[in-house]
């Protein structure tokens, strides 16, 4: 465990916005503890065959790069400029109007000018100018061109791993310039010479070999699911079944594996199991496709494809009709915007149809995969679930839109519809902090590790602040989010910024409210706490 000393919240919230007088062109990074992530371990890199596996640390003077590192990176940039219109357009047309500047949670929380999305982009753009534009070649510094030096590489590492690829900046940019895209490609370039972080590489390697980030082997996954079924039985008196790797199921169910291991994700997982059981859907878990999350998104486009391939492959092997996905953020970016393109066409599957309501999910007619919030909202809308929202009366709930379902999907109403049906006290955070303007948890894209704690708390400052606002105004005590990373990272964030508020997933609340056929009198919620402890029974 790294020992990161954090100042008290009041201190950390005093952010200075005075930029250095000498400008940003000369690269300068100070690897202050608490603001960067450990380097990728050689073993993880070897597992997936990535270049230059070695022991190193960002604080080392020598990063042990191959002798031709500069050529490799520039060649990589040249190739990507030809393969991605996004990269070329985004590098060419920024007018430096600054509209994106204070839209980044890392800038708001740190005041570091290089955390303005526009400057994060300039770190790469300056090299592009220097080596790929005539003006840059002729006029150099004068037009903002910089040579790619080792110091620039270090700066890239520091700031591309202080971007959670949340895409908030791209909402505000008049041209939709998306720093997440540039960060993704920037990290891809760094990966060419073996520069990466362990909190990304370790899950990548595990996901590749065992099928999930947590490295849960098949038998352990089954054990865990049985264990949750026991808990559900204790609470409801109902034994839910756990179909695993079942051929002939109608639906393959894929979740973020974090929900299998860590509190509070496990309660959401119990919620899934209860809803699926109660709905009578003929579905199956898979131990091979036991992860929908995809840290390839934080590594390279090739790695996205390599890790994502198992989902369609498993759907084909098991002979299911369509695929259902759990509550996860970046997982849904991959499923919504990359999967079909990379590993499709899924012509061996059928357009998802809910056998319970008959709803045909036309909007997923090509990818053949729907989100469990869409599935559950549809069940509720058709009156197929019996719900008792008063069982969540102890909670005053607010909803955190996770970046990816928000800005890479537009999944706004389904979860809200569900929330309004499963609890009586739901309050929105201020409008500039939700929906497409939602603020990141500060720990996405591989940054949710302990050694990066100061940056996480800084990046999560705007989110923490908005939660504090509804906590003080309405007494909100539960922050609900549809993302496994959120459930882990927001928990720490709340402990720091708003300790009175706990974190949950959406289906935990559904599970609490769900009246299962033949269930016993409920006394406990899914956390096995007495129902409505400390909360009032009536709605206000």
């Amino acid at each position, binding site marked *: 465990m790294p020992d990161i000393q954090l100042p008290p919240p009041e201190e950390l919230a005093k952010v200075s916005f005075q930029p250095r007088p000498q400008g940003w062109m000369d690269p300068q990074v100070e690897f202050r503890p608490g603001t960067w992530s450990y380097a990728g371990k050689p073993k993880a890199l070897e597992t997936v065959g990535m270049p230059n596996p070695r022991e190193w640390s960002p604080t080392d003077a020598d990063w042990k790069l191959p002798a031709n590192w500069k050529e490799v990176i520039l060649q990589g940039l040249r190739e990507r400029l030809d393969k991605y*219109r996004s990269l070329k357009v985004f590098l*060419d047309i920024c007018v430096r109007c*600054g509209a994106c500047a204070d839209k980044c949670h890392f800038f708001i929380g740190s005041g570091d000018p290089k955390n303005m999305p526009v400057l994060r982009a300039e770190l790469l753009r300056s090299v592009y100018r220097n080596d790929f534009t005539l003006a840059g070649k002729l006029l150099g510094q004068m037009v903002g061109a910089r040579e790619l030096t080792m110091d620039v590489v270090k700066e890239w590492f520091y700031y591309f791993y202080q971007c959670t690829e949340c895409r908030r900046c791209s909402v505000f940019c*008049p041209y939709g310039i998306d720093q997440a895209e540039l960060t993704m490609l920037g990290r891809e370039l760094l990966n060419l010479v073996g520069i990466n972080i362990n909190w990304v590489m370790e899950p990548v390697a595990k996901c590749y070999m065992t099928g999930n980030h947590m490295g849960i082997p098949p038998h352990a996954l089954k054990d865990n699911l049985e264990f949750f079924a026991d808990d559900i039985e204790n609470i409801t008196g109902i034994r839910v079944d756990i179909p695993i790797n079942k051929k002939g199921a109608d639906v393959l169910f894929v979740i973020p594996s974090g929900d299998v291991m860590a509190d509070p994700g496990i309660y959401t997982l119990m919620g899934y199991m209860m809803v699926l059981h109660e709905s009578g859907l003929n579905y199956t878990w898979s131990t091979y496709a036991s992860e929908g999350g995809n840290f390839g998104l934080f590594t390279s486009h090739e790695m996205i494809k390599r890790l994502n*391939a198992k989902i369609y492959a498993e759907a084909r092997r098991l002979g299911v009709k369509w695929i259902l996905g759990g509550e996860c953020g970046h997982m849904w970016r991959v499923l919504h915007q990359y999967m079909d393109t990379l590993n499709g*066409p899924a012509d061996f599957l059928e357009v998802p149809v809910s056998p319970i309501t008959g709803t045909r999910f036309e*909007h997923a007619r090509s990818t053949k995969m729907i989100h469990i919030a869409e599935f559950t909202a549809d069940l509720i809308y058709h009156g197929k679930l019996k719900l008792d929202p008063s069982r969540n009366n102890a909670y005053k709930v607010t909803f955190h839109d996770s970046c990816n379902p928000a800005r890479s999907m537009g999944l706004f109403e389904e979860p809200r519809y569900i929330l309004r049906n499963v609890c009586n006290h739901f309050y929105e955070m201020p409008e500039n902090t939700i929906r497409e303007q939602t603020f990141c948890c500060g720990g996405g894209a591989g940054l949710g590790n302990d050694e990066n704690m100061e940056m996480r708390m800084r990046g999560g400052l705007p989110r923490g602040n908005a939660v504090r606002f509804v906590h003080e105004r309405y007494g909100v005590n539960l922050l609900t989010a549809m993302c496994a990373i959120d459930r882990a990272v927001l928990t720490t964030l709340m402990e720091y910024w708003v300790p009175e508020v706990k974190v949950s997933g959406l289906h935990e609340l559904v599970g609490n409210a769900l009246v299962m056929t033949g269930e016993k009198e409920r006394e406990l919620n899914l956390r096995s706490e007495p129902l409505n402890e400390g909360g009032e029974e009536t709605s206000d």
Partner: protein
Amino acid sequence: MTVVAPLLGVLALAAVSAVGAWIGLTTLFCVVIPYAAILVFLVGVIWRVLSWARRPTPFNITTTCGQQYSLPWIQSSTLENPHTRLGVVGRVLLEVLLFRSLFRNVKHEFVSRENAAPRLAYKASPWLWLGALAFHYSFLVVFVRHYRFFSEPTPRVLQIVEMLDGFFQIGSPTIFVSGFVLLAAAAFLLLRRLLLPQVRYISLTTDYFPLFLVIGIALTGVLMRYTAFRTDTAAVKNLCIGLMQFKPPAATEPIGAIFFVHLTLVSCLFAYLPYSKLSHMMGVWLSPTRNLIGASRMRRHINPWNYPVAVHTYEEYEDEWRDKMKAAGIPVDKE
């Protein structure tokens, strides 16, 4: 340096063209340079647009700013998260015509409180949006109004534009609002760049240069129209029509140094446009986060260079875990 160099650059351009007028290099400044500029502009625009358009968009990376199209009873946001081509056209037009995204702009502010962490507040900040709109629309109007130098008689549409633009009719010459709005808006954008610490920090010479250029153009234009520097518009029109017909008048009457400056700066702006950040004029149409259809689960987006990759197959996986799986009662393919 970042500010002074581009200012000096523009002043130098102005000085050179004034000197050109003084020693009578009319052909160079009124014929050769404008023709060259137009050529450089056209070639540049085509080259630049092709340089983007020929590159593929491998993934559908729409930034979704509204509710997705999903269940029939949920209202989807056709313009902020379009699921049809028409919706995308609407979305891009909103960006181009109304600067939709810029309109979202807010400013964050820490409100300090006693004995508690400060509260973050977000205030709507429409100034950049307003300034940019004023800037671009007045530029457009000014640009369109110049058409009267190129056509005889002045077309109807243009007369309407002039009428609207010149509603402050206070004697002669008619005061056109657009020129002054352009000057004011450009000055605002410049001041903003100089005064806001963050914006100043990110600004490069190449951000100041076009602003000085535009200010120079607008200033000389206004001077020619309303002050003692008044130019012989008949001679200008004669020149312009000549240029249009590729028959530049052989010996023009002297038009005046200020016109030389104006024309040279305009030529520079045009020649500079496609090679600089001003290419956002074309780029905004091609931005993949805005011009792709949002509903990416509905249609498969094709990546032309998608290639096969190494994966860990189910067979390999089962080989590694078969005994454990069987012991746990998990079905396997090979016994």
